């Protein structure tokens, strides 16, 4: 592997570390003339500045919002927030075009036609809530509260809805996380109790100095970053990876390798771009692990890959490695080669042997390094679990976990929030149900449709992909005290999500939502959509409620930084039209249910307790930062190591926080909205590294990470001191207590229980790795991959400014002429809605990225309309974009970037007939076996010119 950047020229890096800082401030020394000062005051001083958090994408950067005369006029990044350090991306900058969009849901609406017809009439809030309340109470009486599902498609600000759901008596609440890269997060969860391994790239970091002061540290220590199927320049979830990745390259000569079948924007900046076949990420990682195990030699500097000292911090090293190595002796049925050998991996990935060897060697030898795997791969493969397990192990055994410049599991170190406001306590309420003629009493939580259901009882992130099946067939509880109980799903409450369009193929959802019983009534008796925008799912709702946009409501950031940071999402302008913030919707619906006689909803839990938005946010902040005092340098040397920290940064810093030795807690002054507003909207606690070690000795501190042994666990169901431990232990216990009833998901892959340590199974619809699909290879020669398009999530596709950008090969100006009402910026007047004509090829739409040689062979070229058809007979149409930037035999589509049939999508609706709908192609029954997650990235198609 040649790590010299393509076209890279060596330049001076004399300015390393200072570039990032110099942007602001330098110019502020200029003295203003009286005239200039007056003009400037007129121009700028009438603004009121609010600090808030973005939601244009899930990165939720810290924002500075300038408001004048009640209008949001300017949007910048908040310089005090290290997530974005004052920067702001195109989507964030374009927020006004969404907030002031003509396509917003303005009033509550009630369906007047059939579901899906999109016919609604305007109703009052009271009429809408009355309808919902009466339905819910009736459903609860007949089917139990559990027959209501709350799906908060958006993670952000979901808590009021969760609280209401749990208080109502249903344990079934889910959010975006359940249809977003679940298998990717699995390895870190099993091994570390975490979720996301990311490079140590966030700057500035607040670090304790040897003189005990705290300093903002800039600069990078990273030497190698491998992004596998991860495209942070476009899928911006971990926002600091943008400036961090290029910053580490320029300032620290860090090498960046991107592994992706398509040349992503991130790959375009990489030193090395490797493009394997789709769905072979785990194969590559497996080969890397085997190479490192086989070739490690502690005595040879050039082959000293493994940090053997790590064994001190790991439980189950030998069990894991023994199980992994036991596969060496097996022959892969698809190629007859030994599992995880270089030959085997080359055969399956399509990469050259030398490339795999070099990659393995480089990852083993260059330190600090980080191996990152992404949302698309393995996040969206049926067998992505295997890959995320091996990836986590690779970071750990090479000594890169939580070292400076290495791999940080951000889930483990983010600021805690939520506390009692989340309403988890309501799920502990005892209820009775009649099961097989017997009265059974147990807690509400045991009715959870997934965790105790017959399919995926370890789906700690709910299986939203399975909801249509549940609408049709109901829920079978196979585990726990209610084993044998069956209930129907009768109410579906969807909040700022678009499950019909995104959570699997729409036809499966449509069938389930529109299904009727013998009397001609909808089986799903109530569907409510609460959103700011009228997306596809709202067309099927019985009631639509307008939710305030993210600048009109208050809450907190939900981010993945390298250490604890939390900031305020302030209500910047008043809710527009008749929209209401989630907190108000929660209180109004709670009050309505109470007034209609629901015995479970009490004023003291809702409207009497939370008078204004700050009240519940303060309750959420009471548990912040909620992380242990560990690592080097110790964040707070004035407090005992390993104790959990609570309170504002200044109250902890003062040394006067109360130490509670009994509970191992340090209690400072609780953080509040008021404190945040007085501190640029943000609270930041100190960074440290080696957080799994004692700060003054190379021994485990038994306080971090978040596993049952507080060590790094390579085993997930084991006994110690007479106790059952490990992440899978309680789920296997459920299976054992049921008498060995194997969950449906595990049955699919031939497992009887959740595995104790390393495991392996093949993905679906991959003719290169799974013999079951080899027969389709000839007729369906293209693998389909998907991915986020920076500027075209639902909200951003409607924004005309973002229609003027290009993104990779999947968002290109290939529109046909159209006319649409759009918000236009008018000097001095803000956003004005105007009807505009857009000529051909002037506005970006979702496209199909295809290799240019493949296109030539098919006789098609950029702009041609084609039809993609999968072996299930489903198809979608779109225009192609031919490029050298994708592996032959692979095509890429943008998620959510085509076939948008909701008129509320504005310009994107206009292009629905010639833009590809990715989810139409996926297999609705391919729900990954452990967590029930849709296999979004496992499909093959053929291509025909239309």
């Amino acid at each position, binding site marked *: 592997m040649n790590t010299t950047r393509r076209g890279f020229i060596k330049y001076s890096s004399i300015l390393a570390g200072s570039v990032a800082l110099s*942007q602001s401030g330098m110019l*502020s020394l200029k003295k203003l003339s009286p005239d200039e000062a007056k003009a400037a005051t007129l121009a700028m001083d009438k603004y009121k500045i609010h600090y808030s958090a973005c939601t244009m994408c899930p990165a939720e950067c810290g924002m500075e919002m300038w408001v004048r005369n009640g209008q949001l006029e300017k949007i910048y990044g908040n310089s005090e927030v290290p997530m974005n350090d004052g920067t702001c*991306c*195109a989507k964030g*900058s374009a927020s006004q075009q969404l907030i002031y969009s003509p396509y917003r849901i303005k009033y509550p609406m009630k369906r007047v036609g059939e579901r899906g017809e999109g016919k609604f009439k305007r109703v009052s809030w009271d009429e809408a809530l009355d309808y919902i309340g009466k339905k819910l109470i009736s459903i609860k009486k007949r089917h139990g509260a559990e027959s209501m599902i709350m799906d908060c498609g958006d993670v952000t600000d979901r808590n009021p809805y969760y609280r209401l759901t749990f208080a109502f008596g249903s344990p079934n609440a889910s959010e975006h996380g359940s249809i977003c890269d679940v298998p990717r997060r699995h390895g870190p969860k099993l091994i570390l109790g975490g979720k996301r391994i990311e490079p140590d790239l966030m700057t500035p970091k607040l670090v304790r100095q040897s003189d005990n002061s705290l300093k903002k540290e800039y600069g990078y220590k990273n030497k190698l970053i491998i992004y596998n199927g991860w495209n942070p320049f476009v899928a911006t979830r971990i926002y600091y990876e943008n400036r961090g990745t*290029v910053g580490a*390259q320029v300032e620290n000569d860090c090498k960046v390798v991107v592994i992706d079948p398509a040349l992503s924007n991130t790959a375009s900046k990489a030193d090395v771009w490797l493009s394997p076949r789709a769905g072979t990420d785990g194969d590559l990682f497996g080969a890397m692990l085997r190479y490192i195990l086989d070739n490690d030699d502690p005595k040879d500097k050039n082959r000293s890959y493994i940090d053997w000292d790590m064994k001190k911090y790991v439980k189950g090293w030998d069990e894991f490695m023994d199980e992994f190595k036991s596969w060496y002796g097996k022959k892969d049925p698809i190629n007859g080669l030994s599992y995880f050998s270089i030959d085997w991996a080359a055969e399956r990935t399509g990469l050259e042997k030398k490339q795999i060897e070099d990659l393995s060697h480089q990852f083993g030898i260059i330190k600090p390094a980080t191996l990152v795997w992404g949302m698309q791969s393995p996040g969206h493969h049926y067998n992505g679990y295997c890959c995320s397990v091996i990836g986590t192990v690779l970071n750990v055994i090479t000594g890169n976990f939580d070292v400076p410049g290495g791999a940080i599991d951000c889930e483990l170190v983010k600021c805690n929030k939520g506390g009692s406001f989340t309403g988890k306590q309501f799920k502990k309420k005892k209820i009775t149900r009649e099961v097989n003629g017997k009265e059974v009493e147990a807690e509400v939580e045991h009715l959870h449709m997934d965790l105790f259901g017959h399919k995926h009882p370890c789906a700690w992130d709910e299986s939203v992909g399975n909801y249509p099946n549940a609408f049709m067939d109901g829920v079978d509880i196979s585990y726990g005290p209610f084993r044998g109980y069956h209930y129907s799903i009768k109410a579906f409450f969807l909040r700022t999500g678009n499950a019909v369009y995104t959570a699997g193929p729409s036809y499966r959802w449509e069938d389930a939502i529109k299904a009727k019983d013998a009397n001609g009534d909808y089986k799903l008796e109530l569907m409510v959509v609460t959103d700011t925008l009228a997306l596809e799912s709202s067309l099927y709702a019985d009631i639509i409620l307008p939710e305030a946009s993210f600048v009109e409501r208050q809450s907190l950031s939900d981010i993945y930084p390298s250490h604890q940071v939390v900031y305020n999402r302030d209500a910047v302008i008043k809710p527009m039209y008749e929209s209401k913030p989630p907190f108000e919707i929660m209180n109004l619906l709670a009050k309505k249910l109470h007034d209609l006689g629901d015995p479970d909803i009490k004023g003291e839990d809702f409207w009497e307790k939370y008078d204004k938005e700050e009240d519940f946010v303060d309750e959420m902040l009471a548990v912040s930062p909620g992380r242990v005092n560990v690592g080097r340098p110790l964040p707070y040397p004035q407090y005992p190591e390993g104790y959990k920290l609570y309170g504002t940064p200044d109250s902890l810093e003062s040394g006067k926080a109360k130490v509670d030795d009994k509970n191992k807690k340090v209690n400072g002054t609780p953080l509040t909205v008021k404190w945040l507003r007085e501190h640029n909207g943000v609270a930041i606690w100190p960074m440290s590294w080696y957080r799994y070690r004692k700060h003054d000795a190379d021994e485990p501190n038994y306080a971090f990470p978040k596993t049952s042994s507080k060590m790094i666990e390579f085993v997930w169901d084991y006994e110690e001191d007479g106790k059952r431990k490990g992440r899978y232990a309680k789920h296997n216990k459920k299976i054992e207590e049921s008498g060995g009833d194997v969950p449906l998901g595990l049955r699919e892959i031939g497992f009887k229980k959740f595995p104790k340590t390393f495991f392996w199974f093949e993905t679906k619809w991959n003719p290169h790795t799974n013999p079951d699909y080899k027969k389709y290879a000839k007729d369906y020669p293209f693998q389909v991959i998907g991915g986020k398009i920076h500027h075209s999530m639902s909200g951003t596709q409607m924004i005309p400014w973002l229609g003027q*950008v290009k993104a990779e090969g999947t968002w290109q100006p290939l529109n046909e002429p159209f006319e649409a009402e759009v918000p236009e910026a008018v000097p001095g007047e803000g956003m004005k809605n105007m009807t505009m004509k857009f000529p051909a090829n002037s506005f970006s739409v979702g496209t199909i990225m295809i290799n*240019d040689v493949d296109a030539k062979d098919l006789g098609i070229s950029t702009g041609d309309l084609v039809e993609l058809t999968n072996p299930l007979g489903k198809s979608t149409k779109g225009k192609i974009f031919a490029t*050298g930037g994708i592996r032959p035999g692979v095509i890429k589509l943008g998620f959510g970037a085509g076939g948008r049939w909701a008129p509320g999508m504005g310009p994107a609706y206009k292009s629905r007939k010639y833009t590809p709908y990715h989810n139409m192609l996926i297999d609705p029954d391919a729900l990954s076996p452990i967590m029930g997650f849709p296999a979004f990235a496992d499909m093959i198609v053929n291509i025909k010119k239309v």
Partner: protein
Amino acid sequence: MEDNHTQERRKFLQTAGAVLAGTVAAAGLAAEPAEAAQKKAPRWGMVIDLRRCVGCYSCQITCKMENSIPMVGFGAWVSTMEKGSYPKAERPFLPLLCNHCEGTEMVGRMQVPPCVKACPEYPKAERKVYLTPEGKKIRYSIGATYKRPDGAILIDNDLCIGCGKCIKACPYGARYFDPNVLLTRKDKEGKYGIGKCSLCVHRLDQGLEPACVKSCVGRSRIFGDLNDPGSEVSKLIKNNPVKVMKPDKKTSPNVYYIDLDDDLAALDEQANPKI
């Protein structure tokens, strides 16, 4: 948030000042003597370090937001291309804006770029005063298009007749007719005013960097005083091979590029409509 605007403003500047102090400490650079840099008017310029450009288009959109740019125009824009064949494909990016050229042609005693030279409404008899940071007054001529002593090429649509000659004269396509700005002069030739990058002088005069620089996601856009040898931009230009757009046009641009992709530059992709 406090209700007192003055207090907010002060806090804003204090914050910025604090960041500056951090710069010196973190970089280990000695503080430059301030007087040396402030003897004459600053010459604002930009270095676009393409090693750091992540292709996000934030500059393009931030500019629209900051300056209420119409759908049909661009103050800042990004050019890109698909280059090479698999597996050697590349996708370079090129952020563009008005180069705020020094110019090589003279109008009276002023050295001006082609757009100013082409403006029939330049220079006007009226002159304005620019105050340098150390308080020195510099008089300068204004017009429908003109150059400020700090190098910013600006427009005054109250003086503009809408002839479009500046749009034609600019080799970079940095100007456009703004359909949302109606001209007021009775003797106007066209209906619409001119739009272009103003270098965010409304922000500069407040001590703030241009919006595209503030937002730049990869920290690729670096802004500062080219007359100050201690500025970030001057150091980057001194220590790296840099290029400007279309040197053959002899406009003497004040926007410099590190690691420019020549093929992409040669594409000459101009986002504003040609007239």
